[in-house]
């Protein structure tokens, strides 16, 4: 099989196939200590007390850090990549099941875990919001009462397209179809979990970090802000990484706790989360409740697409994305079709779930947008009794229409969509597949 100009063997394979890669957990420094995180069993609860005396008395424990410890150093809250703040360690309340409550630093990983069982936290459980569709109900518990002026669980509203014109097309269209759909929460689950080795040198005031990070520069900026160190005193090493898929873009509380632990003990501190922690507390993707609508003529000409979205952002809006749009690139829901009008409205809400939203190669909401439009086209095909591929063929943008400005303002540069679809259908043996279904 030829690939491009021929196969070029990867340089990094030389170390990986020998087991000589350096992933964060492979880093071992003299005097290194190990951290472990105590997590909340409740999705929403007030913290009444945190008793760490027994943990601190464990012979192998060097430090126990709580929200209170961090609060005294102004480290209990950190900025997120979406302009929100996130608790590093909970102080007043816990806001999702699995949220970080305390951090133990001990001589070895097993003792650190043992010491977690010695920490006694008293909680007062509160009603929780776990269904995004209930988040804006009157009387719904306000999750982010730490935020000034936050009277509900509403985060943002965003829209794109022309609402009035779209409504007009829907009014006089011969056929309209509607479909509610959930694009569920998905976790990137890289095989290597998240972790860090933080080494603060008290003498030079320099912080050296090995971390599972896809965005070392962003991390350095945040650590500089939080630790009060100038950026040139922070070195972030992003060594070999066991997959990221967006999960390793955000800054997680465990990283800051490890840094704090190193500053407190004067020794390097390693924190590696386990798989359960990774799945329950780190950045997820999707979680879009969508109501899609499509307006068309009876002979199968798609005229307009409209969609209303409820975006579940969890307890802290930690969406890691550099676009200026709170719903990323969802505006491309107009798809590959020539439309008269389109409109979308996205509402973001807080829930008592793990923080964040899409990150990075979880596509900045393009996946949700494409799913939405293609699903609606299938729904229309079913309604009209037309073959889904045939319906698309009738509506795809034609090559001569490029460059094409879609209804939400994006300019499509070039393309030959009908030919591409035809090629895909031939490769898949579409005709024979449809015969099987008859």
């Amino acid at each position, binding site marked *: 099989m030829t690939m491009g100009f021929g196969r070029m063997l990867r340089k990094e394979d030389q170390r990986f196939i020998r087991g000589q890669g350096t992933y964060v957990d492979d880093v071992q420094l003299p005097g290194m200590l190990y951290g*472990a*995180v105590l997590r*909340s069993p409740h999705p929403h609860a007030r913290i009444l007390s945190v008793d760490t005396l027994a943990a601190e008395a464990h012979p192998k424990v060097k430090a126990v850090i709580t929200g209170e410890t961090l609060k005294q150093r102004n480290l209990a809250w950190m900025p997120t990549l979406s302009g929100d703040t996130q608790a590093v360690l909970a102080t007043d309340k816990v806001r999702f099941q699995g949220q970080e409550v305390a951090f133990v630093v001990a001589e070895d*990983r*097993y003792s650190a*875990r*043992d010491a*977690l069982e010695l920490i006694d936290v008293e909680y007062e459980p509160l009603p929780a919001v776990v269904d995004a569709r209930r988040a804006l109900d009157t009387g719904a518990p306000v999750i982010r009462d730490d935020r000034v002026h936050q009277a509900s669980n509403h985060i943002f509203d965003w829209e794109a397209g022309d609402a009035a014109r779209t409504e007009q097309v829907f009014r006089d269209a011969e056929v309209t179809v509607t479909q509610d759909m959930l694009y569920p929460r998905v976790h990137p689950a890289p095989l290597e979990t998240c972790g860090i080795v933080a080494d603060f040198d008290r003498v030079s005031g320099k912080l050296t970090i090995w971390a599972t990070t896809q965005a070392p520069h962003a991390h350095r900026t945040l650590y500089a802000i939080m630790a009060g160190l100038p950026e040139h005193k922070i070195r972030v090493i992003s060594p070999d990484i066991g997959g990221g898929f967006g999960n390793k873009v955000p800054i997680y509380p465990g990283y800051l706790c490890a840094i704090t632990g190193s500053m407190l003990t004067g020794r390097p501190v390693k924190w590696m989360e*386990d798989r*359960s922690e990774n799945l329950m507390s780190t950045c997820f993707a999707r979680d879009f409740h969508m109501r899609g609508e499509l307006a068309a003529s009876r002979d199968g000409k798609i005229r307009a697409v409209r969609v209303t979205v409820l975006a579940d952002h969890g307890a802290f809006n930690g969406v890691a994305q550099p676009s200026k749009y709170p719903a990323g690139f969802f505006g491309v829901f107009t798809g590959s079709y020539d439309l008269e009008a389109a409109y979308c409205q996205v509402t973001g809400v807080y829930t008592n779930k793990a923080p964040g939203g899409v990150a990075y190669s979880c596509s900045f909401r393009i996946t949700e947008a494409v799913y939405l439009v293609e699903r609606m086209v299938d729904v229309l095909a079913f309604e009209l009794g037309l073959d889904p591929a045939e319906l698309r063929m009738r509506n795809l943008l034609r090559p001569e229409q490029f460059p094409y400005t879609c209804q939400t303002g994006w300019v499509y540069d070039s393309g030959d969509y009908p030919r591409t679809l035809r090629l895909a259908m031939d490769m898949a043996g579409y005709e024979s597949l449809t015969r099987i279904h008859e």
Partner: protein
Amino acid sequence: MHYMQVPSQVEYERATSLEHALSLLNRPDTRVVAGGHSLIPMMKLRLAQPEMLVDINGLAELAYIRLDGGQLCIGALARHADLLSSAIAGEHFPIFHDAERVVADPIVRLWGTVGGSLCQADPSEDLSAAFAAARAIAVIRGQDGDRLVPVREFHRGPYETVIGPGELLAEVRVPVRPGTGSAYEKVARRAGDWSVAAAGAVLRLSGGLGGSPREPVIESAGLGLTAVGAEHFVAAEAEAFLLGQAPDTGSFAQAGAIAAEHCHPVADQRGPEDYKRHLVAELTTRALRRAAIRAGAPKSDGDRT
């Protein structure tokens, strides 16, 4: 909330002989570790926190699969992979091959033991239903000698067996009878997963075989069910129905329906209750059909061995 992921403190002893193992097992909170692939994961979650582990991997005298006095005798330390590759086991009880093929994954099967699986007593354990269908006998060895307990009486409940302090499961035996066919059918959500539901059938037919002019009739039926709350992993009512019936599609379908009616599946992340009952009916029917063919009953269209 914290998932530990590493065991709590434990003491470890390696058994140098069976007697040594039995004397250690007299102590409280002391557990056998063989393959460890059921126990150690539970220890990592700290759902199991024994004081001491007795490693019996060195007791080679417990690792065998052989025919002895008309019985298939499987030593407790026989690994899943051993049972899967055993020609004599496969010849007399293909149900064990069918079941082992779908237990965990090939690497885990190199280490997990037959005895360990039965003693773990997980309600979703495939071998429990397979041995129950075969009406196997558990040989429990103590310092005073052996006692025999039918596998159908071996489990007290989830994660609980009748093995007492100072005792060890030494062997599982299954009587071999001519005219027997067996099979196991499992549905799981992904490769290596626990069953959503599974059914095992062991049939003994008489008459109508090898060219005899009489129609075959079910002389003995064993039906095991996995992961659906069947008492002692057995579909007793369906077994009773099958006695004396012809081994045909109608009987098997009815047996499946009876089995589905009398088990107690619970809705969980593997599936809702009605789906599990549906599986019980369908898988029981399929296992019976394959068992009958293997016992020598004539095939009909669409049957597979």
